């Protein structure tokens, strides 16, 4: 800091004498510290001059004419520390440039370019280098977990390769995607995953059916991930940037000998937790209790003495396995003066901890850059990925997890005949399947192939002006096979097959004009102008057949009976123009302004164009002369930003009406699919950001703090209207998509990096991130009609849960809505004297002692009326956490490195639907959680438990134990299981996310075997979770990425605990 100030002063002094001096020619060579390699492309210019400059050639040599002997030469190149060398009458000046290592000189990738971190005006977070390797991940979005303030990544499922939800500064869209935009080497990839066919087509619930959109990218290929958080940074992406932008950069070649490196690991995954479900003895005890209480007229005689029984089948164990995962990645990089290359090949194979689920991926990638001449550069990249996933039904009532917890322990996995055993399903119509059979025999295989790549040509007219044109494409072809066998376990008697194909093609052409205008010695203006045109098209088809004669042939052939087919096709086109100006005054005042105009085919001609401006300002206070005396101060920068982003992430042609075809007995019928809204326009987010970057003691303490306020208005959504006039489900003539409502997100992101101990041999770094976001729905339609996610209604067909999660004015998105419990009716008096539902007192079909007492909060007049009905519902939980944090410590001792990462989330509530199924004291034939054994048990003073009808005779036998679970009741007139705070739990947790130990083998050893580098590491991930949450895992995420459907535990696929041994070798 001091040094730079000094140079500035000197150069100002020198300028005065410049005119009178005679000029000379200076030449020399620039080399880098590492290996004395020549450095190409270094800009050499006379400080303060716009006209006197040169660049180094491939040998690192330069010649610069017209230099005054007293000038100072500046040597600059991105990625290297700037160097200023006084000429002092020399004609040969060789310099050695150091690669930049400090935070400030770090290059950060921003929209359509990159800049030094110190020049940033917006809010950008980065993960680079080693930090990317600390977690063992299948997909790149997982690398963001706990790494960047303001970015909340939750795994929606522990299934291999599953989709995740990422919220950058909260969710702002109600019915559309809240996933960020990913830009992978310049090609945009939407973070919202595509949906595949789940399990619904063959009957039952669907499960999560969104697949990860990023699974085609091998994490090993990534060198940096940069997250643009505030609107001033993302506005350049206009319509696509509303949810933030994640820029992913892959490895590119460097000049030099070919470096071959191998990354590989092998992991063992284990299931972290199982629930305490009744075993056979406990199940028998439960049955006996029910018999004694008079609820069961008969009992299986073998249950009369539970102590002689074994423990029965543990179905959770039966569907779980210790699973292996392996990953191999081979990369070759290198190049000469003109051409650089990076080639990589990757293979990942992950088995899931639940049987028959797995994920396999092959990837190949080539990146090429060629410097044709001083003015012309070209290159490109090409990547291919093939992923093959076997998905099991993983959420919802028919999911393997739920089924494994609800299956009776007296049924064995296999019968005496070696076939899958089945429960006696006919009793009471229990619809539980043998989960082992379900997992093993039902196939849902998704094979995805994707090719994407780009080519570019760049013309450097001079050092200040360049033009780049780039063409990218992304082509995917997916096939999906579903098979449900004809197998006599329980109820599947019809072999069915489903085959689906999807094809999509996306292309993008962009043109960028970049101009650096050196206004004066201390003023720089960088201008960027660009255009972008993109088009995507997709089509697909699906065929279903049933009554196959064989279980062995998994291809749609002649066999079987045709059931149905479907086909779809669509496209979206976009055109954009944008410009950006970056103004830098003396490295003290930085100004960025952008404007983007986007045209989208998703809107009608009236409103297809949206305009999105942004402005940002930064003041590097530490560069002010009056700050010079504070030499401990390394960096102090204030940033202010404002920007707008658009969102057009809705279906196509919603501004018009289509006629949907469907089969009927009268031939193909047509019906209107939705009402039109020709005035549909862009959803807009307006964001303000204020940030401070603060670093002291030579960057050993580095703090970044950002405050933001984001308003999203004109939300694209279907208003929630009275069901008597319409709806927005598939079967409705849907209400039009409109621009209504407003959502506000405000919050704080803090990132603190400290280098606690810095010695030659021992280093200790700490990295803390903290994200706090407050989300509020500020307005909906004119009447503030609440919205209940349609998705939820379909899933929770269990009664009374249609409105369990809601989007309401004044509340965060996805709040839980229901009744408040107030213990149990402990006696007949209590029952008579308390508020209760409008229901007779009757032990079979009505209210009874031992039922749950709900709180009478209100009534039709707004005051408590003694009756428990819908007026007594209220907000009972909020799935959005109060704050989340990450805490990482890295210890380095000589060649050893230890990394410990913690992750936490505080204050988010979870709706434990799984427990609702497993603790409902209503079911005779499914096992339940062990807690059910301690429910309120009833006795009758007249001793006639089976027939007593007088509530005054009834008492709770175990009243002294203060039972919290209600009495058993088959009819359940009180609806004890209704949506209430009984199922809401605090989802706060602190997780030891990973502990990684690595060792770099000494170079001396490696030389003998021809290695440059060899690192061996051990990693334990998902080590332990501190939480009060009673379910399998407090990290739930959003079902199918739907924001209104967050933190609802439907029996989520558990996130495994992973132990890894890996090596990283470079030859």
């Amino acid at each position: 800091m001091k040094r730079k100030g000094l140079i500035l002063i000197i150069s100002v002094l020198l300028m005065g004498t410049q005119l009178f001096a005679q000029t000379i020619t200076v030449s020399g060579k620039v080399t880098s510290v590492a290996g004395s390699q020549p450095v190409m492309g270094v800009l050499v210019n006379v400080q303060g001059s716009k006209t006197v400059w040169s660049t180094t050639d491939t040998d690192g040599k330069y010649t610069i004419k017209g230099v005054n002997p007293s000038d100072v030469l500046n040597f600059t190149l991105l990625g290297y520390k700037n160097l200023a060398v006084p000429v002092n009458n020399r004609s040969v000046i060789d310099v050695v440039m150091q690669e930049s290592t400090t935070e400030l000189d770090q290059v950060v990738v921003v929209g359509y370019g990159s800049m030094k971190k110190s020049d940033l005006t917006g809010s950008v977070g980065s993960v680079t280098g080693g930090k990317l390797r600390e977690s063992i991940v299948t997909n790149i979005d997982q690398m963001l977990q706990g790494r960047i303030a303001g970015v909340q990544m939750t795994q929606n499922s522990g299934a291999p390769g599953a989709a995740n939800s990422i919220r950058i500064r909260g969710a702002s869209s109600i019915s559309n995607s809240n996933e960020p935009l990913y830009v992978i080497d310049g090609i945009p990839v939407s973070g919202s995953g595509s949906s595949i066919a789940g399990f619904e087509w063959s009957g039952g619930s669907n499960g999560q059916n969104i697949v990860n959109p990023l699974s085609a990218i091998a994490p090993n290929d990534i060198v940096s991930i940069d997250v643009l958080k505030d609107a001033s940074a993302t506005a350049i992406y206009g319509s696509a940037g509303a949810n933030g932008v994640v820029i992913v950069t892959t490895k590119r070649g460097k000049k030099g000998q070919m470096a071959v490196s191998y990354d590989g690991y092998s992991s063992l995954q284990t299931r972290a937790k199982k629930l305490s479900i009744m075993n056979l003895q406990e199940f028998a005890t439960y049955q006996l209790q029910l018999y004694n209480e008079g609820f069961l007229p008969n009992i299986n005689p073998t249950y009369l003495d539970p102590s002689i029984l074994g423990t029965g089948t543990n179905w959770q164990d039966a569907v779980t396995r210790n699973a292996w995962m392996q990953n191999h990645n081979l990369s070759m990089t290198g190049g000469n003066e003109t051409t650089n290359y990076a080639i990589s090949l990757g293979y990942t194979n992950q088995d899931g901890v639940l049987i028959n689920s797995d994920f396999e991926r092959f990837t190949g990638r080539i990146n090429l850059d060629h410097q044709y001449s001083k003015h012309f550069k070209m290159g490109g990249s090409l990547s291919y990925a093939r992923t093959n996933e076997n998905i099991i039904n993983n959420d919802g009532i028919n999911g393997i997890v739920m089924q494994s917890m609800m299956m009776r322990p007296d049924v064995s996995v296999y019968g005496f005949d070696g076939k899958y055993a089945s429960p006696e399903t006919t009793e009471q119509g229990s619809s539980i399947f043998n989960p082992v059979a379900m997992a093993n025999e039902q196939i849902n295989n998704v094979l995805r192939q994707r090719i994407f790549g780009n080519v570019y040509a760049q013309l450097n007219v001079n050092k200040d002006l360049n033009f780049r044109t780039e063409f990218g494409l992304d082509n995917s072809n997916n096939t999906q096979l579903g098979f449900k066998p004809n197998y006599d376990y329980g109820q599947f008697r019809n072999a069915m097959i489903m085959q689906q194909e999807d094809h999509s093609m996306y292309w993008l052409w962009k043109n960028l004009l970049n101009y650096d205008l050196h206004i004066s010695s201390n003023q720089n203006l960088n201008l960027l102008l660009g255009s972008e045109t993109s088009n995507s098209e997709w089509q697909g088809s699906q065929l279903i057949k049933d009554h196959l004669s064989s279980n062995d042939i998994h291809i749609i052939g002649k066999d079987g009976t045709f059931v149905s087919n479907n086909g779809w096709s669509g496209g979206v086109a976009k055109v954009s123009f944008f410009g950006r100006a970056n103004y830098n005054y003396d490295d003290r005042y930085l100004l960025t302004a952008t404007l983007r105009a986007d045209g989208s085919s998703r809107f009608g001609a009236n409103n297809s164009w949206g305009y999105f401006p942004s402005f940002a300002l930064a003041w590097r206070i530490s560069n002010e002369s009056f700050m010079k005396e504070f030499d401990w101060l390394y960096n102090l920068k204030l940033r202010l930003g404002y920007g707008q982003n658009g969102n057009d992430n809705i279906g196509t042609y919603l501004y018009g009406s289509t006629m949907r075809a469907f089969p009927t007995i009268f031939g193909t019928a047509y019906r209107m699919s939705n009402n039109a809204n020709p005035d549909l326009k862009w959803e807009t987010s307006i964001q303000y950001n204020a940030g401070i970057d603060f670093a002291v003691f030579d960057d050993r303490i580095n703090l970044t703090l950002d405050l933001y306020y984001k308003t999203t208005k004109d939300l694209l959504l279907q208003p929630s209207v009275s069901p008597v006039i319409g709806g927005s489900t598939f079967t409705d003539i849907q209400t039009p998509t409109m621009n209504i409502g407003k959502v506000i997100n405000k919050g704080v992101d803090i990132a603190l990096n400290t280098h606690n101990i810095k010695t030659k041999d021992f280093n200790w770094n700490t990295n803390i991130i903290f994200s706090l976001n407050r989300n509020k729905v500020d307005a909906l339609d004119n009447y503030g009609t609440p919205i209940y996610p349609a998705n939820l209604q379909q899933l929770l067909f269990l009664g009374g849960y249609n409105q369990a999660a809601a989007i309401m004015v004044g509340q965060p998105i996805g709040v839980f809505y229901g009744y408040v419990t107030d213990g149990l009716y402990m006696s007949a008096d209590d029952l008579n004297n308390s508020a209760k539902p409008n229901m007779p007192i009757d032990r079979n079909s009505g209210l009874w002692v031992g039922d749950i007492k709900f709180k009478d909060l209100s009534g039709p007049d707004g005051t408590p009326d003694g009756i428990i009905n819908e007026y007594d519902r209220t907000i009972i939980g909020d799935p959005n956490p109060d704050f989340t944090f990450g805490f990482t410590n890295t210890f380095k001792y000589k060649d050893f490195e230890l990394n410990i990462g913690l992750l936490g989330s505080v204050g988010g509530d979870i709706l434990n639907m799984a427990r609702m199924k497993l603790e409902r004291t209503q079911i005779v034939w499914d096992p339940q959680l062990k807690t059910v054994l301690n429910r309120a048990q009833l006795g009758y003073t007249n001793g006639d438990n089976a027939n007593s009808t007088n509530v005054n005779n009834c008492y709770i036998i175990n009243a002294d134990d203060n039972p919290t679970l209600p009495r058993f009741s088959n009819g359940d007139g009180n609806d004890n299981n209704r949506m209430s705070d009984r199922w809401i739990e605090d989802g706060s947790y602190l997780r030891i996310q990973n502990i990684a130990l690595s060792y770099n083998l000494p170079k001396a050893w490696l030389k003998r075997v021809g290695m440059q580098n060899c690192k061996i590491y051990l990693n334990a991930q998902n080590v332990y979770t501190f939480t009060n949450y009673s379910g399998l895992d407090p990290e739930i995420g959003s079902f199918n990425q739907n924001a209104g459907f967050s933190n609802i535990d439907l029996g989520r696929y558990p996130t495994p605990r992973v132990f890894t041994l890996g090596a990283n070798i470079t030859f």
Partner: protein
Amino acid sequence: MKNIFKLVSITALLLANTACKDFLTVVPKDQQVLETYYTSETAIYANTASLYSNFVWQDFSMNFMWMAGDELAGDLFYTYAQEGQFYYMTFTNTNTFLNAGWNGLYRVVSYCNNIINGMPGAARANGVSETAINTGLAEARSIRAIAYYFLTEYWGDVPIITNNNMPSNEIVRHKQSSVYEFIRRDLEFARDNLSERPFQSGRVSKYTAIGMLAKLHLTMASHLSDSKSAENFTIAKNYAEQVIKSGLVPYSDLETMFYPEGNNSDESLFAIQCTQDGYGYGNGRNVSLSRNSNINLGNSWGAGKGATLSLQESFETGDLRRKNTFMHSGDHYDRLAGGGYTYTNYSAEGAAVEETPNEMLNHIRKYVIGANADCGGKAGATNQDAVNNIYLLRLSDVYLCYVEACIGSGSSTSDALALQVFRTIRQRAGLSFSGTAITYTQLIKERRTEFALESINFFDVKRMNYRNSDNAITYLNGMQRQRQYVSNGNNTKAERNVANAYHGGFSVVQPVNGVGGSIFYINQDIVPVTFSAAQLILPIPDETVAKTPRINEQPVDYQF
């Protein structure tokens, strides 16, 4: 170099600019668009075809229809959770199926409104014939009338919606009398614009409209305090007579009436059309009502469902409808289980799917069509999409409406045509009738057995209630819904499978102090289930209450 650059950049920008307009217009490739749809008669009929498909009716027909229709009526025993709450009438307005039923019927209304409001103008502009336009309109209006009939009979005063693009806060409830009048106008339009025989079997005809008009006026007439009650009985009688004399012939084969073969016969004045095109398209009853997977070799959830004891008691000896309504010990069916099924209370030891009796000692037969081999591959036992249609108005219903209209506000009739049609219905069931008068009680009993488990008997209770509320409640309480069988647990499975081990088939003896008693007995000590008249009007579902601010205001007259 600079020139090249200029050239490239200018061309690029120009190209991008000029192509913009066209480039940004993407017309759907996989669907027709509304603007170009209504260009022919075919298009209109393809549009109205949507109104018949179970796809549109599914939220009503899949669950609510039989839960409310048959459980409330006391015909179907089922007590499981929310689905069973209708049996004891202990549901609240949070009941999911109540919500689905209401929404489902209003969805049918929305489809009809969409055609009624949008089709004529668009079709006329394209020069499509007025006849086709009016036929399409008449189809939509008669189906809308049927949906409103169900709505008002279940919920009483309901909002009349004619245009679905209205603000939620303008929605109010209309008085039931207005709803009746609205239905009447729709049906009269349909009567005047439909042909005597539909142009496609299964579509509505003039007689669909007239049959519904008969039922509507009978319902209106049952409000005896209404000044036009007597007049309405007469109108109902006249309409019903027109249908009786239309030349339509009652379906003769009770065994196949509820199989796909019975679809769209003369008997079927209006039925929801079912096809095997996946969940929602077909009849779900083969899955939801069948005893177990032995019956249909697919999914099956009907183990806990059976005909109530009072329904069983209402069948006379020799009534052929009995075996086609429910099955009990000793019954054999050729067309179930993929080639024959004999009902026993318990299956033999070691059976693949073990069978046990339910509390009613019977399981449902009507609408259950077995496995694919039993019904020409149309069992739909995986996706709940069997192909047997769901009747909403049968010819026999209009026959018996005639009898009821003749009885009028009195207690019996000896109208000759009434005696004739009553005999026709009974003879088809293998029963004779030689009486010279039909009493109201006889008629109701006949209707109950004829239409058992077809989800319309609750409306008989409603009409009874309109006539005299006390009588209706006495009738309901007399069913003694609390009655159910328990096993004394002392006998072997074989003993419990004796041929007469069904309700009415053996004498019921209750054990004394847990000892002795019949194989199955009815617990005599159980508290009676009783009802009140208020329970006969269903509550408006909570979702609608939450989203319709003025729904709880006093109902108003509809302004025609």
